[in-house]
């Protein structure tokens, strides 16, 4: 995972080191390294990406459009977007709260909190999904109580949202913590000493100072939310037109040998991913300017 700050630093460093005489290599080594990188990226990134689009359009434009406007596909797209609309703002609030707490206050167990925030990165998404099945499933800890009260979590939107939240909550916090740590608390102190309330200080000083980091985190969080497969697969139950998100829908189509349709939806996701990367880079560039 890249953090915008570190990206900024490395960019500065490479700028310096590319001019550094001591780090000059011979032209051969330079070109060899560049070619290795290019081959690698071409083989493992560009080629598969191209093959997605080639396969998607194999049977022509009409089949492509038909695969995407198919009711099940549309339902999957809609569900994916609903999940993103719920998950991303919640993670924004959580990320800001956690980063604020960690960087502006000192309290016991701070390091434990920082470690816990990283936990979803360490745990396999499948396990994350299973946790919710074990908690809320029919045979789960709270299963009977939920059934008695007619609350559906597993195999429903709620479960998908919970699993996605679990997998994606570190993104925003992880972006903001180093940024806010670097910025320190003196600007907030200055704001308070000038008579601003805590809320106004947050609104006028803290938030504008970390807005690019926040946005960057949200973009990464959004990308992961849309693409999450493992955790969602476990809790969703794969009910067509009901609990299938886009990645799950692609898998089902593929398993049914509907390659063109599968790749058509996949190409849609790839476009989303590419747009995300472009926005991400614009944000990173903007953040560097400020």
């Amino acid at each position, binding site marked *: 995972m890249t953090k915008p700050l570190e990206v900024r630093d490395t960019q500065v460093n490479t700028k310096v080191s590319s001019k550094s005489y001591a780090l000059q290599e011979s032209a051969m080594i330079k070109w060899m390294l560049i070619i290795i990188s290019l081959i690698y990226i071409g083989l493992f990134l560009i080629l598969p990406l191209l093959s997605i689009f080639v396969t998607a359009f194999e049977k022509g434009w009409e089949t492509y459009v038909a695969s995407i406007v198919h009711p099940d596909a549309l339902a999957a797209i809609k569900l994916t977007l609903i999940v993103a609309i719920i998950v991303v703002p919640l993670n924004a609030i959580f990320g800001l709260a956690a980063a604020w707490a960690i960087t502006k206050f000192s309290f016991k167990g701070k390091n434990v909190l920082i470690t816990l925030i990283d936990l979803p990165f360490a745990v396999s998404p499948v396990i994350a999904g299973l946790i919710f099945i074990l908690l809320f499933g029919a045979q789960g800890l709270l299963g009977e109580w939920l059934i008695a009260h007619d609350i559906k979590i597993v195999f429903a939107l709620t479960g998908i949202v919970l699993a996605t939240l679990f997998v994606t909550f570190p993104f925003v916090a992880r972006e903001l913590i180093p940024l806010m740590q670097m910025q320190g608390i*003196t*600007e907030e*102190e*200055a*704001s*308070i*000493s*000038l*008579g*601003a*309330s805590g809320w*106004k200080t947050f609104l*006028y*000083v803290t938030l*504008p*100072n970390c807005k690019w980091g926040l946005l960057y985190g949200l973009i990464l969080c959004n990308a992961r939310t849309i693409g999450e497969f493992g955790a969602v697969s476990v809790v969703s139950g794969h009910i067509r037109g009901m609990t299938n998100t886009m990645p799950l829908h692609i898998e089902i189509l593929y398993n049914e040998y509907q390659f063109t349709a599968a790749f058509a939806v996949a190409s849609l996701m790839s476009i989303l991913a590419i747009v995300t990367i472009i926005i991400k880079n614009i944000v990173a560039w903007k953040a560097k300017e*400020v």
Partner: protein
Amino acid sequence: MSIQIQHVTKSFGTFQALKDISIDIESGELIALLGPSGSGKTTLLRILAGLEGLDGGRILFDGEDITNVSPKERKIGFVFQHYALFRHMTVFDNVAYGLKVRPRKIRPSKEEIAKKVHELLSLVKLENFHDRYPSQLSGGQRQRVALARALAVEPKVLLLDEPFGALDAKVRKELRRWLRKLHDEFNVTSIFVTHDQEEALDVANRIIVMNQGKIEQVGTPEEVYDNPKSPFVYDFLGNVNIFKGRLQNGKLKQGLFEINAPHALNSYEEAIGYVRPHDIQIEKEKVNNETVAAKIMYIHVVGPTVQIELKRQDVDEYLEAELTKEQYKTLNIQKGDIVYVRPKQLKVFIPEDFSI
């Protein structure tokens, strides 16, 4: 606004930053909190601003207990050591901030705010910089924006944390003069923290010397410089020569060498005499036992003063003397000469003075 600090204590974990501090500050004073790092001066300033809580004691502003009043209601202006300007706001918005964030009822109109900000910016000679960002300003300019921003809220007390610490010598001197002018103009009680004794002596009308969480001495610059109450203050304010010896019958004795110490009446086995370099008299002939032979090691001529480094011939100690250029010319001394040194003014401290 007058300030009373009464028995204030503060600890950070096991470190006691302030130990029972009490000071009365009168309205309109310009006070320097002077001390080495770790002496508690910044902590005291932050407690006055309400940025730091205190463990014991209380603080009164104009006789009113404000110990538990939040910083935003204290009517203080705080200038931070590294300015703490809002990096995403222009100079104008920085200065306007304190007025803009006021509750609607007491917030001035947009036009009034703009007028006030431009007034302040012209006062700090930055009218043409109103649309710049802090990162586009020099250190001295940032400091002036920070001052204008603090003054915009019309504070009753101006608190400055090492205001000139990060600036180069020339800008520093200019800003010092300028702070004093500003203080006189606004007639606001001002307290600034510094570790630079020259700065404190130059700017303040009263100096509070702090060391290890305690107040060593409070007084006008002349008082603390000419009449230091403790060895620490003597040492901290300017250069000093040390004469160790036995105190007997109003004389400090060390071997053959005897200096009159008329204020010290009791006898002590161990005492230390402090002499400022400009209170060292150099003579070419030995007159009496009050002088000590020393060899001139180094002569350094800076502007109107001449600094002379001497090595005592009786013990292995160095002395520093400061002469005017005229004295130096009349004396006609050179590097390597043996001369006789006599302290003109000596302040003797006994061991009890050190056990602080």
